[in-house]
């Protein structure tokens, strides 16, 4: 039963992809876009500031609390 279902799912995608015309171009755009977004943009330009700067939630809390109480705003 499971084997049959997996076989069906495989062929749903396989046949679908092989019969595509414009869809192939769309998949190419999607793959390039996702690569640009996740590998180049995210990795190079969009670090998660608080995750990278601090190792614990307590340290992150303290940093944001300092920010909210005006103690680390001078560096802006």
């Amino acid at each position, binding site marked *: 039963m499971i084997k049959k279902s997996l076989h*069906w799912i495989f*062929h*749903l*995608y396989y*046949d*679908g*992809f092989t*019969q*595509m*015309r*414009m*869809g192939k*171009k*769309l*998949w190419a*755009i*999607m793959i390039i*876009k*996702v690569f*640009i*977004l996740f590998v180049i*943009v*995210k990795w190079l*330009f*969009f*670090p*998660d*500031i*608080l*995750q990278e700067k601090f190792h614990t*939630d307590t340290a*992150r*809390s303290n940093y*944001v*609390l300092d*920010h*909210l*109480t*005006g*103690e*680390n*705003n*001078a*560096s*802006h």
Partner: protein
Amino acid sequence: MHHIDPSLIDWSRAQFALTALYHWIFVPLTLGLTFIVAIMETIYVKTGNAWWKKTTKFWMGLLAINFAIGLATGIIMEFEFGTNWSNYSWIVGDIFGAPLAIEGLMAFFMESTFFAVMFFGWDKVSKRTHLLSTWLVAIGSNLSALWILIANGWMQHPVGMHFNPDTARNEMTDFWAVVFNPNAYTKFLHTISSGYVLASLFVIAISSWYLLKKRDIQFAKRSIMVAASFGLMVSLFNLTTGDDAARQVAINQPMKLASMEGLYKGKKGAEIVAFGLLDPSKTLKDNKDPFLVKFAIPGGLSLLSYHSFDAYVPGIEDIVYGNKTHHIMSASEKMQQGKKAVDALKTYKEAKKAGNVQEAKAALNVFEANSKYMGYGYLASPEQTVPNVPLTFYAFHTMVGFGTWFIVLFIIILYLTMTNELHAHRWVLWAGVWSLPMGYIAQEAGWITAEVGRQPWAIQDMLPVGMATSNIASGSVMITFWMFAILFTALLIAEVKIMATQINIGPKEADHV
């Protein structure tokens, strides 16, 4: 606001606005076109007429293009939250976490799974199973929008949470209050129904073009009949949800409402401006008429906002400077409370660190008593609470004006289609074509109204945008702004080119997307 580089705030806002506006080019069409395609396929399954299958497949192909190009454009906003708005992300974390996690699961399981069946399953599953998949894609994509809009609604009207002064985070105290936040669900209904209107305009525009070119005539007429019927129904629904959404704005964000209407001085029986040109030299308290020209309906704003012709609608100056007669607290008073809250938070933090339990407890009591207006404590002047009035006013009136035109257009097109005279009225067909860009402008204008009108707040009354930004160099935000501008423009060009090619090929070749 203290010591914050204004250019950093401006570039961060500009980048988020750019990302959101581009993202919103793709989303509403997907939200609406999925339903139109589902309706067409339902007709096919009911009638067994192969023409409807072909019609469904053609529009499904254009849906695929829009979906593929728009896919993941919204994820950039998540990147921006972590980098440009890290303080904000931390402060709202618990509130955003649950809705966005549910959104992610729903989008992944419902959309992804049934999208495959919808596109690849025509000959693999029964007619009814395929139809079910198409409807589930429509429902799934709209439900995933629900969770995003719940998160946005919370920012406009924060409910069901409590700010924890130990962790600097808002913690959810009532999930259902967040879900049934009136600001959220009215926004959701208005937003998705606007997407249905846009999709109807999209189908009408392309079909009108076919009729103008005298090609694929039966296909175009059939598509127009579905789109105009659906469009009229949903645009009337959109009108009522817009009214509900505006009422929530009146209750929870009176400054936004006053800016949407260019209302500087509050009044009983306030008129609603149907059309107006603002005086660009107008400033607060100068006693000048805000309008150079206007056509207004007396009592309209009072009636729509508070269901009474005599209701008092506060103006911008009432909200900034207060109005004792109408019990409106001034921004200065709120700033005083806000500063008390900020000072108490600082005292609490220091007392806790020093182990002084009594002082910490006293400070916490002061903080809790004043935390409602904490955000005002970061403002430098009461006038900072005023958003960009001309931008809010014109964006709102563009949205409403275009929305009204769409209702008229749907009625005319539906009537002419039913009397089989549409092809003889070329001006109506051209109006159908040109209403599509107007639909996109109305979509963006709606978001500009919602987001510009609530400035300076990232979270209404709690956190101004300046305090929400990260401590990073404005130059790096500027670079990524231009990078996104190029990337999104390239995607938009790709979408338009691929769509134009597919539209030019027409429905005859729609079998293999």
